[in-house]
């Protein structure tokens, strides 16, 4: 017990620094992924053949290959083509592109669920397609997507752990360096696992709060009065 306490006193600041980077990476990846995912899903549902093809290509590529591989291609592969990014940027790009592909699928599902009828209704009062998508379909689709989409922030938080392999100083990287200092890998990684658990729990609680606050009265996925 005492050893446990000592461990935390000694290493908590370091772990928290790492956790901070983890949270930062998650937020960045999530935001970039959201924009990409939104564009890709809109392209898939409302775009012409060419745009749809691009969107599908992107989505299939980033969902069909491991994140770690995408990370390595960006970090090790691109310099071969003359494009070099800092390790932080590489992590950001990989996480963002990867998350975007998954978010696109969540959003596409709810766009389709809302789709046809509401599009007709919007157009019937003279709104253009674009206006209807922006004012009518998206507000509903985004809310509808929240329960399923809530999987993504948590998943992304966990995914950030692999970027330690390109030496980005997030939590897992700190774990590795601490383990080297304590010669106790199992204990160290267990402690780090606890920190991750705490982060996941907090994130999850936050997401459920968001879900409750944005609920539209009387409108859930099933069960509408008519």
């Amino acid at each position, binding site marked *: 017990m005492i050893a446990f306490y000592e461990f935390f006193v000694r290493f908590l600041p370091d772990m928290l620094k790492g956790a901070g980077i983890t949270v930062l990476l998650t937020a960045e990846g999530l935001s970039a992924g959201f924009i990409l995912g939104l564009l890709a899903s809109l392209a898939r549902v409302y775009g012409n053949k060419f745009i749809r093809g691009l969107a599908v290509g992107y989505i299939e590529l980033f969902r069909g290959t491991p994140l770690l591989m995408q990370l390595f291609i960006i970090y090790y592969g691109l310099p071969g083509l003359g494009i070099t990014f800092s390790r932080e940027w590489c992590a950001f790009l990989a996480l963002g592109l990867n998350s975007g592909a998954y978010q696109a699928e969540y959003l596409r599902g709810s766009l389709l669920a809302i789709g046809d009828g509401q599009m*007709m209704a919007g157009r*019937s009062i003279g709104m253009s397609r674009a206006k209807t998508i922006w004012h009518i379909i998206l507000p509903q689709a985004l809310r509808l997507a929240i329960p399923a989409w809530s999987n993504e922030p948590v998943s992304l938080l966990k995914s950030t752990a692999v970027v330690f392999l390109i030496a980005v100083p997030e939590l897992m990287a700190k774990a590795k360096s601490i383990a080297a200092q304590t010669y106790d890998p199992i204990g160290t990684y267990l402690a780090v696992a606890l920190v991750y658990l705490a982060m996941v729990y907090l994130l999850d609680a936050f997401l459920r709060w968001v879900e409750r606050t944005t609920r539209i009265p009387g409108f859930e996925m099933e069960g509408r009065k008519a």
Partner: protein
Amino acid sequence: MTNPILETRNLTKIYGQNVIFKDINLKVNEGETIVIIGPSGTGKSTLLRCINLLTSNDGGQVFLDDKEITAKGHNADEVRQQIGMVFQNFLLFNHLTALDNVMIGLTKVKKMPKDKAKEKAMEELNRVGLADRADHYPGQLSGGQQQRVAIARALAMDPRVMLFDEPTSALDPELIGEVLGVMAKLAKDRMTMLVVTHEMGFAREVADRIVFMEKGSIVEEGSPDDLFYHPKHDRTREFLWKITELYGKKEKEKGAVE
């Protein structure tokens, strides 16, 4: 003799191998209420959607106020401000309150200032009898109430013509009356209306003219008296007998349509 406010000429719609309707010539005069009846699946709904350009047509033209709205380059969005539509499953915007549903066309399409839009929206909600439900969401309203809000939403745009696509078909029987009542009032106020429905009582009482459509073309049209009591075609007679038998029973139980 003024020109009809709305006219279709040789309007045709084909879907794959099927001819939905062919060479439909329909003239609607200002202030008239036209009811279109006929067996399900004969393209009546599609006809309405071709008229307000929600669906493209495969031949023919549509004229509103003597201007061809099906002409290339004509702004379809603007046309839809002038031709209002009410759908069978209401299609209210679920994320907006009743008031916002009615207002959004005014603020986002007509670019009205918010306070003026609110005033007008409340007026329209009042017209359909739902001013007290302005802050309710569609999920909190009954079917009949939702449909009335949908009518208010369409009316708020001050359309020249109102299209109703089987407005009561998705409603529980006891809710049909409140919607038909609103529609009858509109007709009395001389709104130009084109209504697809199976409600024969409404057709008989409120329509200025009834159009019987079957298998993609207009079989017969005329005043309610003409069609119900002196139908020229056998098919018309057959169809009306079958329907009124069913609805006649309903009417006797309900009392007269208000």
